[in-house]
């Protein structure tokens, strides 16, 4: 399906006004995993050299009542030299417990450029498991930002393969848990040929009994020389009962590479906190400022200023313990 063939006008229940649409985006609704509930999985394709003028916002909603699980797949194909920006959002109508399994294939041909922002903002009984299968050809660039704000159990599996010289894959993620939420990232990134670049920065703030697992492997195959691959995972524990597990891994079978990985699990810096309080900033506000600062490194990766500002607001609301629902929405997704 080509971008301009997608149906943009949603026929939806009145109570769900997802959000004030971004000025620079066109919205497409995926009802129960298919375009407008019409049955066929989404297969998005940009032709050679095609430039998507606006962001494409795909809003996946589950309209069914009751606890049935949902499983669907979608694909995004960027032909040679094409470029586009995609926002993937997940929402639900009901507050029933259920699970969504989503398979997403992202293929970038030579010199294609794609930007993805994945927004996971569901309720506490909605489990979501995603499988991303990403391949990049020579000279292709993928910039992808994950924001996991709410959900019961969220598991994101990302498999990225760099298959052409000078491909560049930049993955960033932010996960915020509280209550009994759990968010996992499982990343396998393979440099299959020489001269590619990858960068990963994943950060999480865990409150209450929140739990997160980060499992990230960078693999550099034999003789993939001149590889540059970086990975960082940082976790902030803001309660005594939150837990984070991190497993950064490098497997390198080449000798002329620049690779690094780093992982931390820590707490808010007490010196910063005291400094802010001596200026009259109340302790709760000081903590929010510190946490926002921590999150901004990821949120700042969003290139659209309009989208970035909106995400900053959602993240800030989330950190303040307010419902991080979108503007004008009547649904308490969380």
């Amino acid at each position, binding site marked *: 399906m080509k971008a301009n063939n997608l149906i943009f006008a949603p026929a939806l229940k009145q109570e769900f006004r997802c959000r004030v649409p971004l000025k620079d985006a066109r919205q497409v609704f995926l009802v129960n995993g298919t375009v407008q509930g019409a049955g066929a999985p989404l297969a998005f394709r940009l032709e050679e050299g095609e430039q998507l003028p606006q962001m494409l916002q795909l809003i996946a909603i589950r309209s069914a009542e009751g606890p049935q699980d949902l499983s669907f797949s979608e694909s995004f194909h960027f032909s040679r030299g094409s470029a586009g920006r995609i926002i993937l959002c997940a929402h639900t109508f009901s507050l029933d417990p259920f699970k969504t399994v989503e398979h997403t294939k992202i293929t970038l041909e030579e010199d294609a450029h794609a930007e993805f922002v994945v927004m996971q903002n569901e309720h506490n009984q909605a489990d979501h498991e995603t499988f991303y299968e990403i391949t990049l050809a020579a000279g292709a660039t993928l910039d992808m930002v994950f924001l996991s704000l709410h959900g019961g159990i969220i598991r994101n599996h990302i498999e990225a393969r760099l298959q052409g010289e000078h491909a560049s894959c930049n993955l960033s993620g932010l996960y915020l848990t509280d209550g009994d939420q759990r968010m996992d990232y499982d990343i396998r990134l393979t440099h299959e040929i020489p001269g590619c670049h990858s960068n990963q920065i994943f950060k999480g703030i865990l409150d209450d009994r929140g739990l997160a697992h980060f499992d990230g492997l960078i693999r550099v195959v034999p003789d993939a020389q001149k590889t540059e691959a970086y990975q960082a995972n940082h976790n902030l524990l803001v309660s005594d009962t939150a837990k984070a597990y991190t497993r950064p891994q490098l497997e390198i079978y080449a000798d002329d590479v620049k690779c690094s990985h780093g992982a931390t699990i820590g707490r808010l810096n007490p010196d910063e906190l*005291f*400094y*802010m*309080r001596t200026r*009259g*900033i109340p302790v709760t*506000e000081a903590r929010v*400022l*510190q946490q926002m600062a921590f999150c901004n490194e990821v949120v700042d990766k969003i290139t659209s200023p309009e989208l970035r500002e909106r995400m900053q607001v959602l993240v800030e609301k989330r950190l303040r313990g307010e419902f991080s629902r979108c503007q004008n929405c009547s649904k308490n997704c969380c």
Partner: protein
Amino acid sequence: MNTLLQIENLHASVGEKEILRGINLEIKAGEVHAIMGPNGSGKSTLSAVLAGRDTFTVTEGSVTYDGRDLLSLTPEARAWAGIFLGFQYPVEIPGVSNVNFMKAAVNEQRKQRGLEPLGAAQFLKLMREKMAYVEMDSSFSGRGVNVGFSGGEKKRNEIFQMAMLEPRLAILDETDSGLDVDALRIVASGVNKLKRPDNAFIVITHYQRLLDYIVPDVIHVLYKGRIIKTAGKELALEIEKKGYDWLIHESE
């Protein structure tokens, strides 16, 4: 003149170790008090205890500020009441810009005093005006708090923040350490511009040099957690010449 701060028999410890061992000090509105003393005498501890740092435990004594029990207040409540601590080592806060930091601080203090928050234009005007006090470039406002600042820039930022918050009692903990002569002059003139009959300063320093610029009414010498000598400003010159040994000897 009315008493702004009254410290009586103040004892404070960190863990098992007693650092302040009976401090008595009275500060009136309009006064500048200098506190000197050798390393490890408890100067920074005193300033931290007054600002409400919880790593220190007050074991005895009282601190009355403007008629209130200061020690029962949280650090932020002390700031709302008009106390300001200029840090010896200002803290870097990556990701929080100076402008957002100051906006949060100023507007919270206004809220606590029943004032409306400042609008964006008013706030920026105030920032510019106060940055000029310490000859700070406006490019600093967008940068992370103290991040990548030189030692001198950090100290200027402390004075800038003080100018923004207009405290009634400012405690400057070795604001002169690590400053070159020009920075020292800028910092001192910032302090002098903020001096009013209704506020007071406690200036902690090792060097007489700062006191050439910020002229104190009283100088106290702190040693092993006690004030062993209180005198006029000429004491600083004597200390510069003769060191602390004679004072320590005298007190023992």
